[in-house]
């Protein structure tokens, strides 16, 4: 299987953390909060769709909600494959970062 892209990884993690209420709006809010950058809706929808197609996510619809103009929410959950992919990318990260030395925020700032 292909390695996850960075945005896919971030989205997957956000969904994992959000547990039951993982639909687009909180996912986006969470990502904005964590990264400190503005995420457009498009940059969330795209990875969500891709991940669902790959089988790492699955989704279901809630009842129509009035505050949303009578629209439903599409709530996402990780599939076992999604969890596996997250673990895989974590191990890759750990492996890559394992013997990196001398890279510290202070040195970056200069």
């Amino acid at each position, binding site marked *: 299987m292909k390695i996850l892209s960075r945005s896919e990884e971030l989205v997957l993690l956000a969904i994992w953390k959000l547990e039951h209420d993982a639909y687009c709006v909180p996912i986006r809010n969470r990502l904005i909060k964590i990264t400190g950058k503005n995420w*457009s*809706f498009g940059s969330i929808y795209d990875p969500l769709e891709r991940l669902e197609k790959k089988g790492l996510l699955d989704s279901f619809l809630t009842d129509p*909600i*009035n505050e*949303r103009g009578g*629209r*439903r*929410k599409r709530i996402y959950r990780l599939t076992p494959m999604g969890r596996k992919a997250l673990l895989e990318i974590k191990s890759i990260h750990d492996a890559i970062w394992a013997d990196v030395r001398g890279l510290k925020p202070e040195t970056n700032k200069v």
Partner: protein
Amino acid sequence: MTMKSSNYIKPPRIAEWMLKSVYSDRGEYTHLGDFREVFNEICQGKGFLFAWLWYWFQVIRSLRGFISNKIYWSTLMFKNYLIISFRNIIKNKWFSLTNIIGLAVGMACFILILAYVQFEMSFDRFHEKADSIHLVIYQDSYMRSNVKEYSAGTPELLAKALKDSIPEIVNVARIMKPWTKKAVLQNNEKSFYETGLYADRNFLSIFSFPLIKGDRIESLADPNSVVISESAAKKLFGNEDPIGKSIEYKERHKQYNLHITGILKNLPANSHLQFDYLISVATLIADKSNSFMINTWDVGNFITYVEVKKGSKKAIVEDKFPSFLKKYEQKGYQLYLQPIKDIHLRSHFWRETSTNNEMKYIYLFISIAFVILLIACINYMNLATARAATRSKEIGIRKVAGANRTQLFK
């Protein structure tokens, strides 16, 4: 959902509709809900205006990608269709040839016939006063057979009498055809056969034949004055200015020396009057040998046109004719008016100034045109459906490639 939605501020309707078409989202439109939720969030935080701006900004941003995407794919598909149709033509040369030529010839016929019909229908419409100019028709009853005959020939006195006694008639003009069909116009050694008319001084103020030089009224006022067409002037005088020059005019029994007082632009083909020169009627009257037809009610050599007051109906004027004729002690005939728009297609009588067409032929032509078009279309359809079976594979592939229903027909 019974709860009222008015607690929540709605985003602009148009913007929402646009978003809806951009994000189809499997027909569920959950995205719209997401946008609305954030919209409300911003509304509560930073105010309505900010939220409104934000929403529109989102729409515009999504539209850009949406539109460029659409254009990209449709041009791609169009290119593909072009290639395929070209290949198909090459593959079935004879078949395509008959098919395309059949349709093309059918359509060409249709267009040509319609162009002809349109030309025929446009006769005499170019005059400014086309609606109010009428031809006076004369109807005589033959004693022997009791057949009624119509004629355009009217006596010399009629025009003035009509203008004097019927207030609805604001202007009159007489014309007369020369004795011979063609007459000679001569300038020194140069001489040409031309066709033309004798015309009253009012002639050019009623009809709007365009005049290049000369006065609309005065140019035909005096005896021995003539107005010639642009092409006749070119033939007779080359590039010289012909105004004021004199030419010799010869018919079989008449000969005049005429002064050129005006130049007409060449006539449009859709006029029932066709002429290359206009000689003033005053010339005729001044000629003593014509006295048998001047100042009389008995000889009907002139053709009389009347301009009816704008807005008054032809029937109202015609109603006044019987008492008019009684006043001038005329018996044995009746007068009618004919609108000049009808002359070309709906008239048929003696002493007309031109050979005319008939309305029934126009209808015939129109129906033939449509039948030809219909046959060409049926033929094309027939051949195309016959071939559709062999192209079913292509359609299958196209469907697989994701073409939608409307694209398949192309």
